[in-house]
């Protein structure tokens, strides 16, 4: 798991006046499932297109298996792409679409037929080979696109929001299927999405991007539990973000009170962002709370209730399986290790 397959070194990209990527450094290991996660326009698709060879970086280098591949055109790279809108060839049927890559490599036709059949089975489309791609549903087209890329046995599969156009149920199923396929075939996946849940579900590693920069790289658990800054905290899952001040090691002050925390090494009185996940906000009787507030709103979310609690200036979002009635006063407690203190992002 330690061998780097792809290295992006100081990659920058500008389109005219606007900077899309600034100094992206990123490595991908063999057999890793890496997700580039970020809001639209953060540069994640451009990063993918640079790896695929469809964009040329303004600066920096792309190293593949120890060699720079900047000079290689897309058709000579050992990567294949699943495009956002599938980009199937409308003039060919499903099997012809899947066979395209092998036909170009002049693979014998018997072998093509056999491998196309294997692929159709892998993506659960047996018997659909002769169907026109335009007559397939979104999910089926998606599978054809995946099969078309995988049949070439690439070292790396690039996926650009491949599930974006599918409905929720299908998306969830495909997430699991994709993950299974990746593990079964042992192919490196680089996956682009703006859906944080998708990223958390599927990835080995997540790179959170915003405004052309990588905000944090890490395992899904680490990204979720220890977000590096307020942007990541806010983008990955829901968060209460309060402005605070470090009053010393293990002591942060916000909303007029001092709290014990597990963070240290800040300058004295350094202004910080304090992040608390809604599920980490514990609701207690008013008298026992470190902070108090009035419940403004209760929404039933299925497994839990979401409550908005007005505590002075700040509106807390709390998740709990126990409902506190709207209009009532409650107390709020947050355990020290669930208070995440972050340096302010320079914006």
């Amino acid at each position: 798991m330690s061998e780097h397959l792809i290295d992006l070194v100081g990659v920058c990209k500008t389109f005219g006046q606007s900077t899309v990527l600034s100094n992206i450094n990123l490595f991908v290991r063999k057999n890793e499932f890496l997700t580039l996660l970020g809001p639209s326009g953060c540069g994640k698709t451009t990063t993918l297109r640079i790896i695929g060879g469809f964009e040329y970086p303004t600066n920096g280098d792309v190293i593949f298996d120890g060699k720079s591949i900047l000079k290689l055109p897309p058709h000579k790279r050992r990567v294949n792409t699943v495009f956002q809108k599938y980009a199937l060839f409308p003039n060919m049927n499903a099997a012809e679409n899947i066979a395209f890559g092998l036909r170009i490599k002049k693979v014998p036709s018997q072998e093509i037929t056999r491998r196309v059949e294997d692929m159709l089975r892998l993506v659960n489309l047996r018997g659909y080979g002769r169907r026109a791609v335009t007559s397939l549903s979104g999910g089926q087209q998606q599978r054809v696109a995946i099969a078309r890329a995988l049949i070439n046995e690439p070292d790396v599969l690039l996926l650009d929001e491949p599930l974006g156009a599918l409905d929720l149920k299908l998306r969830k199923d495909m997430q699991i299927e994709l993950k299974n396929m990746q593990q079964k075939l042992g192919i490196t996946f680089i996956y682009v999405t703006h859906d944080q849940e998708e990223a958390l579900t599927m990835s080995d590693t997540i790179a959170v991007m915003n405004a052309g920069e990588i905000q944090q790289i890490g395992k899904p658990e680490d990204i979720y539990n220890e977000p590096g800054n307020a942007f990541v905290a806010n983008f990955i899952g829901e968060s209460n973000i309060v402005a605070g001040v470090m009053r010393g090691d293990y002591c942060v002050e916000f909303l007029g009170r001092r709290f014990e925390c597990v963070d240290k090494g800040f300058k004295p009185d350094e202004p910080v962002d304090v992040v608390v996940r809604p599920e980490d906000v514990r609701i207690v009787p008013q008298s026992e709370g470190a902070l108090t507030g009035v419940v403004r709103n209760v929404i039933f979310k299925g497994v839990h209730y979401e409550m908005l609690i007005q505590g002075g200036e700040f509106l807390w979002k709390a998740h709990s399986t126990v409902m506190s009635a709207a209009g009532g006063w409650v107390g709020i407690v947050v355990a020290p290790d669930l208070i995440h203190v972050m340096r302010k992002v320079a914006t």
Partner: protein
Amino acid sequence: MLPYLLWALLFIIVPILLIIYYSLCVETDSGLVFSLQNYSRVFQPIYLRIMWRSVALAFMCTLFCLVMGYPVAYIMASKEYARKGFLLFLFLVPMWMNFLLRTYSWLTILERNGIINSVLSVFGLPNIDLLYNEEAVILGMIYNFLPFMILPIYTVLKKMDQSVIEAAQDLGADSRTVFLRVTVPLSMPGVISGVTMVFMPAVTTFIVSDLLGGAQFMLIGNLIEQQFLKIRDWNFGSAVSVILMTLIIASVAIFSMVDKDSEGGALF
């Protein structure tokens, strides 16, 4: 629906029925009498030759337009080419001018004392006959109809999903393979409508052949014009028109059969 039906009836169906009616009659002293005589006349060798020549010239013109027009459309539609607006404008400007005028201008270029021959005589070279032959007619047709080939192909290429091209590159296709396996098949609807839009006016034209081919140069269009306006044999003229119409419908049907799946073939 009803307004459309009325419109179609008035401007399409009634005129066609009238032409068919005329073509099936001959004029006698006692008025119009039913007869197939006009049609048997159409199949006389002299008229068959004219028809063959029309189709052959129109075919040549269409072929040249395709060979010349596709690259132009391709270059204009490519995203690297920055001045496409200007190039498109250059191709469209002549179309805003009168058809007759455009064809006349070739006369002044090609004629005995025209521009080309004047240049030749400056260098002491002998004059050449450029006018009043098939080449001149084809040249005039190509010049007039080329934009009709370029525009539909350009439109299709321009609208083509760029990611499909990228997908082909991604799957290992070099630029030549991408062009042959993806771009060309996907641009077939544009090619078909371009071919139709060039072939149809080319096979029916009479102005180009009249001006650049000379008075003796007969194409099917000239024949119809002559029958209606000079000889005033409307019945025979109608019969030739009906045959011509059948010819065009048949050729369009053949074009669309070449590429059944595309939208261009939706007519059949």
